[in-house]
């Protein structure tokens, strides 16, 4: 019982991180239909920027995270302008390859700046606390609370503000949105800004309990893809739900099946899903 609840809490924590990353991915997919392979690099950069801010300038954790959100968000917008915008009418194979190019570049860049070493990030919230009979670190609690707060804010932004609803409108119908006078360029840039910001938050929250290294985005991005296929490409609730489902299955799988193969769980899940539903779990039949 004790192990189970501990693992459930772990699953919740991992799931929170996955959900945040998947949210950024699904937003971009919903608006532009780009599977943004470079999103993993955004995640990685998010962690490095926070780490650097804290180490180099001794900025407080939260402030460092804010800087990271800004930096990565703007970088993400830059990427949209310079790469995806020019490719908006190209065959679908092109933007995938372009995204891979960006990913390779950013990883090499990170390695050049920060080196290939694995680094750990300190946190002011390292203390161990007792939560409903579970022994957990404060940082893990923060990840969970932080993720929920960010998701709520995102929800409020999308549902309650004008700008947010244009994003939703465009996700549902790009041509239609253009016709009713929505500036699709602005919406695309805004979406990339949010997407990059989410990746930075996720990475900064998760970095203290993981390691920071140039390839840290690989697995996370792959799993985020699994999640948004699980939850329906472009679906926001789907990304959140999918993130938690994967988080739970991994932490339980690691305990009760095999720790070596826990990373395979996500991919097996995907392989199984796509075998039976080639267009994803919640694909709508189109005309």
């Amino acid at each position, binding site marked *: 019982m004790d192990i189970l609840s501990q693992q459930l809490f772990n699953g919740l924590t991992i799931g929170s991180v996955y959900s945040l990353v998947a949210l950024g991915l699904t937003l971009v997919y919903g608006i532009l239909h780009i599977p943004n392979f470079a999103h993993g690099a955004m995640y990685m950069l998010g962690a490095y920027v926070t780490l650097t801010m804290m180490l180099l300038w001794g900025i407080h954790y939260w402030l460092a995270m804010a800087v990271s959100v800004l930096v990565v968000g703007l970088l993400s917008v830059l990427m949209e302008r310079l790469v995806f915008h020019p490719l908006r009418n190209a065959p679908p194979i092109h933007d995938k390859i372009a995204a891979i190019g960006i990913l390779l570049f950013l990883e090499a860049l990170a390695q050049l700046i920060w080196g290939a070493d694995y680094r750990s990030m300190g946190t002011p919230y390292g203390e161990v606390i007792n939560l409903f009979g579970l022994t957990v670190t404060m940082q893990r609690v923060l990840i969970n609370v932080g993720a929920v707060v960010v998701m709520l804010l995102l929800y409020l932004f999308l549902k309650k503000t004008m700008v947010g609803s244009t994003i939703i409108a465009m996700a549902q119908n790009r041509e239609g949105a253009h016709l009713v006078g929505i500036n699709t360029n602005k919406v695309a840039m805004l979406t990339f800004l949010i997407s990059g910001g989410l990746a930075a938050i996720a990475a900064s929250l998760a970095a203290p309990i993981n390691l920071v290294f140039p390839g840290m985005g690989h697995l996370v991005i792959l799993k985020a893809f699994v999640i948004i296929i699980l939850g329906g490409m472009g679906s926001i609730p789907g990304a959140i739900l999918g993130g938690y489902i994967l988080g739970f299955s991994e932490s339980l799988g690691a305990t009760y099946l095999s720790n070596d193969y826990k990373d395979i769980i996500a991919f097996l899940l995907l392989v199984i899903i796509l075998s039976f539903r080639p267009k994803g779990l919640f694909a*709508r*039949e*189109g*005309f």
Partner: protein
Amino acid sequence: MFLETKALTKQFGGLIAVNDVSFSLEKGKINAIIGPNGAGKSTFFNLVSGSHSPTSGQVIFKDQNITKLPPNKIAELGIARTFQTTNLFEQSTVLDNVIVGHRLRTNSTLLDAVLRTKRFKREESKCKEKAIEVLDFVGLTAVSDQLASNITQEEKKRVAFALALATDPEVVFLDEPAAGINPDETEGLAELMKKMVDRGITVCLIEHKMQMIMKLADKIMVLNYGEKIAEGTPEEIMNNQMVIEAYLGGSASA
């Protein structure tokens, strides 16, 4: 019966795109399907050609039930279709684009290709001859060596016809063949359709241009909100009260 649909119905989620449509084509004639935008015409085509499978109902071709067959099998039986827009391989010549149209009548495999067998050579030239023949038929011999990216909109429409004809069809379904081209060119395409009928090919088309249809078609079916509201000769259709209402009350596409 040549080709007929029996109570064909297609539902997308809660929306009924085609509702209980029974229709039979007149063999060796020009058949037309008209109706306002969103009346279910293209969906009807997709059902007959196998691109979608119907929710209920049947498609019968020469006494064979083809409802559940995939599009490629339906094409093999001699039912060809065109799309509103045809994606051609732009970096290739018109002739090269059309050659593949006869592929379904050949059997050569990868192994034939690698070993350059006799069958390979025979079928390669057979497909090429076919392509030359149908390009000649649609009047594109002059541009057959040009890149597909360099030909006009109207010529692209003709290439789409040629591709369909290269499959050796008995019946051809044309999805808005005259969309996006000028009246003179429309006239030319109408001539081409008559020529196809003269050659024994049954034609069925979706069209918005009413004048063209009324002059051209032998038999017309009118769809509205997925349902068949009328069927008959152009005269009958023109005097049908329901059709007039559907068109006056509906969109102005007539």
